[in-house]
């Protein structure tokens, strides 16, 4: 790897957008005069991730963070904007004849380890499949050796190879998912709520393994979570999403010590604190609006304590401010 390459961010998302058509069927639209309805799940999201770093996306359900994850691994095609991976257009690569070369470099870990592993396959088959699919091994002995090595790298044993997923606990299953994602030796891992389905003591095991692997292999992570304490632990940079858009993107320390966007402040206030018991936190107002019919102007304005007339009509631009990025009229 030369010095020039290291300075370039590995992942660049530029104005990524994904719109879903959720209209009623054609006949109902004609007969009942229902209009077409578009859901802007992700509406112009831009960020960069440096090699070996972790960007975390946080936000409440329905804010589009999982859609971003699916856009990054090519499960969805963007409606607008694009994704550059190691200076190549990733979505063009996903469609080209050697799409496999790109897929090999970007892998994903899903939330629910009970749903993401085939219950009828042995661990050996689950972890070995990507190795065979990408032609990374030539015979059965080599396959076994590689799978054993992968299992050991996530703290499981080679003896686990003939077992089935139901024989493992949730935390162990999530480690199998990680081993499978690592099989193709990817550079970039997209992790969609990887520990949300796990108990805290097990969550700590999985987060520690993910950090160790990042250090050993120089992995780059996009880490999606709604748990701000977990995000604070794993990330270098944090992006806060609200109704399909980023509202604030900053390095971890400035985001947590000096949040600028009122929504970020609200989220931070909402976390139950372990060590100052009995203290009432700032009450949070309102709920996330219906994404099918988002508010005008800044989509956060109906819940914002600092709302002005301008916020109700004019959508705030995504701009740079003292080293962070923010979409808010009032931040200065």
């Amino acid at each position: 790897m030369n010095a020039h390459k290291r300075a370039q961010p590995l992942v660049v998302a530029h104005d990524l957008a994904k719109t879903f058509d959720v209209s009623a069927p054609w006949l109902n639209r004609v007969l009942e005069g229902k209009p077409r309805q578009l859901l802007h799940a992700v509406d112009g999201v831009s960020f960069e991730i440096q090699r070996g770093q972790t960007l975390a996306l946080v936000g409440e359900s329905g804010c589009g963070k999982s859609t971003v994850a699916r856009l990054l691994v090519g499960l969805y095609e963007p409606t607008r904007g694009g994704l550059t991976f190691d200076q190549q257009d990733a979505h063009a690569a996903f469609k080209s004849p050697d799409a496999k070369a790109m897929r090999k470099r970007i892998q994903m870990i899903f939330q629910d380890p009970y749903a993401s592993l085939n219950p009828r396959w042995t661990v050996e088959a689950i972890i070995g499949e990507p190795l065979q699919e990408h032609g990374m091994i030539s015979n059965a002995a080599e396959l076994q050796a590689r799978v054993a090595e992968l299992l050991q790298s996530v703290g499981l044993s080679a003896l686990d190879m003939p077992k089935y997923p139901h024989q493992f606990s949730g935390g162990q299953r999530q480690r199998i998912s990680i081993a499978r994602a690592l099989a193709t030796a990817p550079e970039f891992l997209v992790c969609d709520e990887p520990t949300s389905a796990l108990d805290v003591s097990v969550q700590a095991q999985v987060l520690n393994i993910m950090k160790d692997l990042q250090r050993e292999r120089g992995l780059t992570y996009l880490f999606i979570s709604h748990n701000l304490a977990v995000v604070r632990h794993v990330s270098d940079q944090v992006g806060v999403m609200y109704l399909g858009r980023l509202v604030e993107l900053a390095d971890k320390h400035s985001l947590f010590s000096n949040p600028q966007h009122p929504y970020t402040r609200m989220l931070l206030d909402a976390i139950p604190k372990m060590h100052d018991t009995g203290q009432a936190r700032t009450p949070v107002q309102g709920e996330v609006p219906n994404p099918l019919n988002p508010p005008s102007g800044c989509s956060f304005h109906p819940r914002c304590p600092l709302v002005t007339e301008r916020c109700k009509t004019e959508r705030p631009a995504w701009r740079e401010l003292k080293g962070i990025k923010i979409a808010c009229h009032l931040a200065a």
Partner: protein
Amino acid sequence: MSLLQVKNLVVEFPSRHGTLRALDGISFDIAPGEILGVVGESGAGKSLTGASIIGLLEPPGRIASGSITLQGERIDHLSNDQMRHIRGRKIGAIFQDPLTSLNPLYTVGRQIMETIQAHLPVSHEEAKQRAIRLLQDTGIPAAAERIEHYPHQFSGGMRQRVVIALALAAEPQLIVADEPTTALDVSIQAQIIGLLKSICKERGAAVMLITHDMGVIAETCDRVAVMYAGRIAEIGPVHQVINQPSHPYTSGLMASIPDMSSDRERLNQIDGAMPRLNAIPPGCAFNPRCPQVFDRCRQERPELMPARATQAACWRVEGGAA
């Protein structure tokens, strides 16, 4: 006198491979107006404890021994019919998913009024006024109109408010809330916890709050019971359990939670996983994972005993040593 007293509660599930003991000698009590938190990992038995108290244990699960006493009366061996008069009237229940707790075919007003009239001798009109007041008290705007709406017309947070109103409808003295905020977003979660706490305080209702979220416990409860493998590992005032835990499992659990105020590179992890019901080790159930294990832990099972500021089931604290 305590409001609820649970003594040596044992819940068993008979199965083809022998009887599984899911709760093994649980004892605690709740004072009137008190909020008791019950925390633990999945499978520790917290929801089963709640289900036993409200008499909704799924067969083949059954209470094998022990007693549950509410206001001096035993309720653990009542028939379904007798239990129906207690549920709602004396014990209210709030579950995790507000959508499945409400009947989608009836308006929320009708559901609340039904509960009120089933338990209290009031007229239709009076019941309606009470239902509106309940919805107002739980923070639902325009309650007089919302009472005519169906559950699907409410958002997730609003639905959980309706469920809380429903649980309080017949003015019970005890609310069993099983993961009431787990299905909600963080910003909504804060609202619901705040509401639950203030509304129960106003009415003097005691709450048994079951959750896996230690942060919620810290903010809400007076006392907390930490469960592990069907037993209570530690119980005591919430500040003491969090800040100076005596049981190694509690300390491990606290240290494994990512904290907003510290900058540790690695989280403290408890190696291994909670044992399955058919493979609970002899002695202390936590001994294979315990960093402070010694011989006695592998042979003899510790009961709850006084520790520094709490009660812990651990040989290390015997005689107040640890």
